[in-house]
């Protein structure tokens, strides 16, 4: 890059050697996050556990985008927080660039956090209303000791704003003076200010109007190309995730039920839950809507405090078989070409076994 943009290489400790592209930046191995349910006024007793994330393994390659989808309560946000160590995992291993994070704390952890940043859903509550945009961005730099005198900082801020598509005049503004889309750009600029390698974006566009969502998605994509960022995008909107992600993982009740390259997953979903999810997404085309077959799932998500035995999806699965699905927990297995599915009957369902058929 010849332009005076603040490239990662400018800061020695951040320089990712370019020959590393293609390897894993993030590796999660059997990560669990369990929250205790406590009762009692005088003596705290733990009466149960909420299994928010219950054994998730995945890897995110450098420079790529991993999309995590699932419905509310599936544990996708908790997993994102655990990855940034905003949440301490109960067990399992979290490696960032080969460094184990799960038991790290204090100064070492803070230093690691410079390399991984987060973009939040709700921009109004994640930006301090009493700080100007300039002060918000400078604060991020100071926190990591990256404020190198007013002149270079000033230049850096202007470059940041232009990278996310805001005018330089925005520096003097306060969060409430901006529209939702502009505020999300400020949130992105703040995350980028410290030159991170990984950005975790939790529902980055779901609070925005549809016409503005596209603007922000395009900004995220441009920044990835420009700075070689690695993204974990967490969203409930399957169309958004399909648009941005190279690889997609589908979560249900704290576990991954399916994972594959984005194109494959959407063309050939194999887990019954993924199939139902995809069939439920409304498509803005009446011809498609009238023709398509919907898999309506009965009931609601079971409580993560009392997850069903066996396959966690068996209580709502139209294809579930008694004696197997409610007893044996299916593991995530490769059905070919890196397409992972956690379902006992993925192949026979794909071949067209009807839900009613048994035995």
């Amino acid at each position, binding site marked *: 890059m010849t332009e005076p943009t603040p490239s990662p290489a400018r800061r020695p400790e951040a320089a990712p050697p370019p020959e590393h592209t293609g390897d894993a930046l993030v590796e999660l191995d059997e990560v669990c996050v369990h929250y205790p349910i406590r009762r009692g006024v005088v003596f705290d007793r733990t009466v149960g556990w909420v299994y928010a994330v219950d054994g998730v393994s995945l890897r995110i390659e450098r420079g790529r985008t991993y999309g995590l989808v699932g419905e509310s309560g599936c544990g996708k946000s908790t997993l994102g927080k655990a990855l940034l160590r905003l949440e301490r995992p109960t067990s399992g291993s979290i490696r960032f660039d080969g460094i184990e994070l799960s038991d790290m704390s204090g100064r070492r952890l803070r230093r690691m956090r410079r390399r991984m940043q987060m973009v939040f859903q709700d921009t109004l509550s994640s930006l301090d209303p009493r700080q100007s945009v300039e002060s918000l961005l400078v604060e991020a730099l100071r926190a990591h000791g990256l404020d190198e005198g007013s002149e270079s900082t000033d230049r850096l801020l202007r470059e940041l704003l232009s990278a996310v598509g805001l005018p330089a005049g925005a520096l003097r503004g306060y969060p409430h003076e901006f529209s939702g889309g502009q505020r999300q750009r400020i949130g992105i600029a703040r995350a980028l200010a410290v030159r991170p390698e990984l950005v975790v974006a939790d529902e980055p566009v779901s609070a925005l109007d549809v016409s503005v969502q596209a603007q922000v998605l395009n900004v995220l994509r441009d920044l990835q190309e420009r700075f070689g960022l690695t993204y974990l995008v967490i969203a409930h909107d*399957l169309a*958004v995730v399909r648009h941005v992600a190279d690889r997609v993982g589908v979560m249900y009740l704290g576990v991954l039920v399916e994972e594959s390259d984005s194109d494959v997953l959407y063309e050939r979903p194999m887990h019954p839950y993924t199939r*139902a999810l995809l069939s439920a997404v409304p498509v803005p085309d009446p011809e498609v809507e009238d023709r398509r077959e919907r898999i309506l799932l009965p009931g609601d998500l079971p409580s993560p405090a009392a997850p069903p035995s066996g396959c966690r999806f068996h209580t709502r699965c139209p294809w579930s078989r008694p004696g197997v699905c409610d007893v044996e927990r299916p593991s995530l297995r490769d059905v070919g070409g890196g397409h992972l599915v956690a379902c006992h009957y993925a192949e026979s369902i794909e071949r067209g076994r009807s839900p009613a058929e048994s035995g």
Partner: protein
Amino acid sequence: MALLEVRDLAVRFVRRGEPTVAAVDGVSFDVPAGRTVGLVGESGCGKSVTSLAVMGLLPRDGTEVSGSVVLDGTELLGLSRREWDRRRGSEMSMVFQDPLTSLNPVVPLGIQVSEVMERHRGMSRRVATREAESLLDRVGIPDPRRRLREYSHQLSGGMRQRALIAMALACRPRLLIADEPTTALDVTIQAQILSLLRELVAETGTALVLITHDLGVVAGMCDEVNVLYAGRIVECADRHALFAAPRHPYTAGLLESVPRLDTPRGQRLAPIAGSVEDNIPWSVGCAFSPRCASALPVCSERSPAVETVGPGRLLRCHNPLDTDVGNTESSHD
């Protein structure tokens, strides 16, 4: 004659010391019995205020409502409070976006559902409770007898929305307004609720006004679609015609800016420039013109009028897109 006829509805919010805000600015549409009509638009376009005005739920102080809202031959605007109370819940009812704030947290569900019928249909508590049980069953709530004794916090989001729909339908209203009924719900639950609404309209012949920002929901649900922008309807058409060939640049822009499951991946999205805050007042010109890719000089000087451009198709635009091209890329400069 349509069941609901809205003509030149305007809602202005007046506050002393502040400029008057025209939230709804001359909206007209019809809803025939047994049909589903959509009001679509982004935040601030006036879709919810329109529905509140039709239901008579706007605060009386500081609000100026003008125009006409005729339900089954009766003009609603200007009715007394008592007259409104008699109609709301019996002839017309509403389902809101957030089911948690729409339900009373300290009253058991059964009482909330049955009191509608006690009040409007003159039932005794016992008869109304039995009726409530069958209503909950009808909207797909399992074990309805137990649920009648429960409170709203004990229900899941989808269940609460079903309960609200049950309450709205308790007196077999002729008009049902659903304001973003599935926006707070997960997609699999959204699919359940939408298919329930679809069945109810087909079964009971209720006229449904569906307010949403989700074009996918509109495509699957509505017979006719009104697209709102900054308080005015900019395009109105049958859903097939609208999605096949949007004529207003705003409609086309909306359709192109959403990522879709059925189009090739990896294409850059074509967003609409700017945001709703870049509007100009309708009194000056077309409110959308500062964001419009096909804007002409006239667009910021003269406000476009509504024109009929086909059977059941209305358009408010100086420079509409061609019928065969649903594309904002066609530049006109």
